[in-house]
């Protein structure tokens, strides 16, 4: 080996004087603070508008508004509010008691046992997460409503006057909400169970525990934090449900807080923004603590997983003959929550009319779809939905990445602020966020032109799903070992160069996966666009909400199928490329 004789190469930065390089670093830091400032603005501005509006006596654009507590007084005097609150609590607790045990059992069966057909069951189980609740709601109405396909089939088969179920009752709404949220619990419980190494279970087996004792004494206690987290999540989602109670609760007049807020829109004849703001503030006062609680629990859950064993090889627990019983239970759940609504809405999209005694084969038609294309606003809705999913999804991922980098491997107050900031939109149901953004576009001078462009929809979507997107991005960033970045710094790369040359290339596939997931979420979204809906900003989800109210069932059914296909395409691509659908 020869000894080195070549000259030492100084870094370009260190060859200049120290003052210049310091100045450069100030500029590099400026980009980060700008990102933080923008993020704070887009999150805090709409929220503070809601708060501000709730303390006014009239909508903020009215000349005669004054500061007062009238809005709260009105709401607290309204018997409908109490009935909505009662129903919301009933639904939230019902969801908790249905979804958590079912999700836990499902997770155990899928992750730990030799249940037949686990491979093809997995994507089916997740369907309710990705299909819009509005679509599921429509599906239940046309499939199992008083004159639904399956109700008609039941009546003609058994010769009864009516089907033995009533999907418009509060019980049915609670049951359906509970069943459709089983996958949320399943996701967290199963990933915790999969992270759990077999060794801890094998240690229990060696000590003399039977497989069921192992589950009871070792596996389930170890995933308890995840179940607890999922429970709080489901309870929280119970306060957010909008689509299902809007569709199913309407016929019998069952209101929940979100639908109560929606119906307030025109309660007094004029836009009653102040009343809605008051309800919104009350709702956020419930949801925000729940979000903080979730964050706490998620941290603890992570700490628990840190003591996991090696997740190398896992042995499935043999169920014996019980496997068929288990499969029957899973299949029954799938039929009720996936097959019934989706088959119903799909069938509805392809028939012109139906009823007791009408042979369905003779009414089959494609006209529901061909008619769509004669309506400009419907075509625009389809194009816009794709646009906001594909382009908007990419732009949103870019924003989330920028925010992610602003907090990455830093431990100053800026990154702590971002940590909490991204949680805030999580506590605001999409319906409220959309409303708040509408106000922003009305209120802030110079933004009015954007109100009727897709930018308003995209901005609202981006902020509403910020917490979700940030979790995806941070998950990807955490995969990059700190020493890979430190190595770049040590050979002379600045923070910015390290991010561009090392971190970003390494999280590329994570970003693509995030894009796909954000695409699906944006296609599924329906409540955020409700108040932003105007000629030019039609998106499928929000348009279906307003079409349903006008009774245009043909169009809603056809659009639902198109919506399902969009999400399904995303899901198929995700499965094809092995994207993890959850963390």
């Amino acid at each position, binding site marked *: *080996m*020869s*000894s*080195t004789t*070549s*000259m*030492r*190469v*100084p*870094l*370009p*930065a*260190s060859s200049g004087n120290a003052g210049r*390089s310091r100045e450069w*670093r100030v500029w590099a830091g400026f980009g980060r603070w700008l990102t933080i400032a923008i993020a704070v603005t887009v999150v805090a501005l709409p929220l503070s508008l809601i708060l501000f509006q709730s303390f006014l006596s009239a909508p903020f654009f009215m000349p005669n508004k004054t500061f007062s507590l009238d809005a709260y007084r009105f709401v607290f005097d309204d018997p409908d509010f109490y009935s909505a609150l009662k129903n919301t609590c009933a639904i939230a607790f019902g969801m908790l008691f249905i979804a958590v045990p079912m999700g836990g059992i499902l997770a155990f069966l899928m992750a730990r046992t030799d249940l037949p057909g686990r491979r093809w069951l997995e994507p089916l189980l997740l369907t309710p997460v990705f299909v819009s609740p509005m679509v599921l709601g429509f599906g239940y109405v046309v499939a199992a409503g008083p004159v639904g396909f399956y109700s008609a089939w039941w009546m003609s088969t058994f010769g009864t006057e009516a089907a033995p179920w009533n999907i418009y009752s509060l019980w049915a709404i609670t049951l359906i909400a509970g069943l459709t949220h089983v996958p949320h619990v399943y996701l967290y419980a199963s990933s915790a169970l999969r992270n759990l190494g077999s060794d801890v279970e094998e240690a229990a087996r060696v000590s003399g525990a039977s497989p069921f004792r192992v589950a009871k004494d070792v596996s389930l206690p170890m995933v308890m934090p995840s179940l607890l987290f999922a429970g709080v999540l489901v309870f929280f989602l119970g306060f957010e449900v909008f689509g299902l109670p809007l569709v199913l609760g309407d016929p019998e007049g069952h209101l929940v807080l979100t639908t109560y807020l929606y119906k307030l829109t025109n309660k007094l004849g004029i836009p009653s923004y102040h009343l809605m703001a008051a309800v919104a503030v009350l709702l956020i006062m419930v949801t925000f603590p729940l979000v903080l609680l979730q964050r706490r629990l998620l941290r603890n859950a992570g700490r628990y997983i840190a003591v996991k064993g090696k997740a190398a090889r896992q042995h499935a627990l043999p169920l014996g003959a019980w496997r068929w019983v288990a499969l029957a239970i899973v299949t029954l759940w799938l039929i009720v929550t996936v097959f019934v609504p989706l088959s119903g809405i799909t069938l509805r999209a392809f028939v012109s009319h139906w009823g007791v005694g009408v042979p369905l084969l003779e009414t089959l038609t494609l006209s529901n779809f061909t008619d769509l294309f004669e309506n400009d606003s419907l075509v625009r809705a389809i194009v816009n939905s794709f646009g906001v999913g594909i382009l908007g999804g990419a732009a949103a991922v870019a924003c989330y990445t920028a925010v992610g980098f602003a907090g990455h491997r830093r431990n100053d107050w800026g990154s702590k602020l971002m940590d909490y900031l991204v949680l805030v939109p999580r506590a605001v149901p999409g319906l409220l966020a959309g409303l708040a953004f509408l106000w922003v576009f009305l209120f802030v001078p110079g933004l009015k032109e954007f109100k009727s462009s897709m930018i308003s929809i995209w901005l609202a979507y981006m902020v509403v799903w910020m917490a979700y997107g940030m979790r995806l991005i941070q998950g990807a960033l955490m995969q990059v*070992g700190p*020493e*890979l970045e*430190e*190595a*770049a*710094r*040590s*050979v*002379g*790369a*600045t923070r910015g*160069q390290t991010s561009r*040359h*090392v971190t970003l*290339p*390494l999280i590329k596939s994570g970003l693509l996966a995030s894009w796909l997931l954000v695409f699906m979420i944006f296609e599924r979204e329906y409540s955020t666009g409700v108040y932003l809906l105007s000629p030019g900003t039609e998106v499928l989800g929000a348009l279906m909400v307003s079409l349903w109210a006008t009774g245009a069932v043909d169009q809603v059914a056809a659009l639902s199928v198109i919506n399902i296909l969009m999400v399904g395409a995303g899901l198929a691509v995700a499965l094809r490329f092995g994207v993890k659908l959850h963390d």
Partner: protein
Amino acid sequence: MTKLIVEDLHLSYDATEILKGVSFHLKAGEVVSLLGASGSGKTTLLRAVAGLEQPSSGQILLDGKALYDGAKDINLPVEQRSLGLVFQSYALWPHRTVFDNVGYGLSLRKVPQAEIKQRVQKALDQLDLGHLAERFPFQLSGGQQQRVAIARALVYNPPVILLDEPLSNLDAKLREEARAWLRELIVSLNLSALCVTHDQTEAMAMSDRILLLKNGKIEQEGTPAELYAAPKSLYTAEFMGSNNKLSAKVVSVEGEQVKLAGDGWELNGLARDWLTAGNDAQAVIRLERVRVVDGPGDNRIKAKLITAMYLGDRWEYLFHQGGLRFRAYGGEPRDAGDYWVEFPANDCWVFATA
């Protein structure tokens, strides 16, 4: 010529003080090892020199220029220190080829493409990696990855190279070869190197000088021979080599000569500490200094051999004597039974019990 000076460096995480005033010098062409148990602060010290940790006070000077100076509020960012750092995990960038991994530091320095190509190739050839330039890190063996990591840190000729446990990721067999290879490389390229290790054999083999750290302070500093043969404290004596530790009472002290007594035995030793007759003391003697002998004599104890363990190049014996347990090496197998064992007085270091 002194390359690197660290003066009274302090560093804390939150409330815990990790470095409590460390000072040392690294001369040009010298290899210094930071040795210590886990939690002693050795890796933190190395990372502070690299600029990856933020000290709270003190100074770090490279060629007389301050990299860090707590009093003057100077803290050069990592990338402007131009040091070479080899990570314990190697930290090769998985999305870049070997060539791109090694060449990155040069392209950051705006070296022309043709020169980058030539210099990277030269560095890779020096480390016998010339044929692997187009491979990706995951296609390399552990030993090759280690050499790529070293090439990456050397290619821009840093004034000092920092190595964080460079051998700990290799399997035991490879480690000894790599140790010799690394020492040869450092010597032949005349590098100035600061190396972190927890393995005393590695530290002794690799370095010109060793800094033994204990709880964020330098316990003892010196050549490997000084640390091994003339430990100044009980901690150093115990950290280096394989030792027998005997608890006893001091019977008498005469200059350096100490007489110790235990449960049914008496030994003479060398005082390496301030001792007072009647107090408790610890005697430390290296395993290889204890000798099994034929009969009684000075500084000999009769003890019962419990078992003899074959180590390949020698045997290790385990003796019991009353409450005393000690081990010794020897060249031949021995049956269990009573033997006379000698503890040469000059190798029997006596320290006061704290």
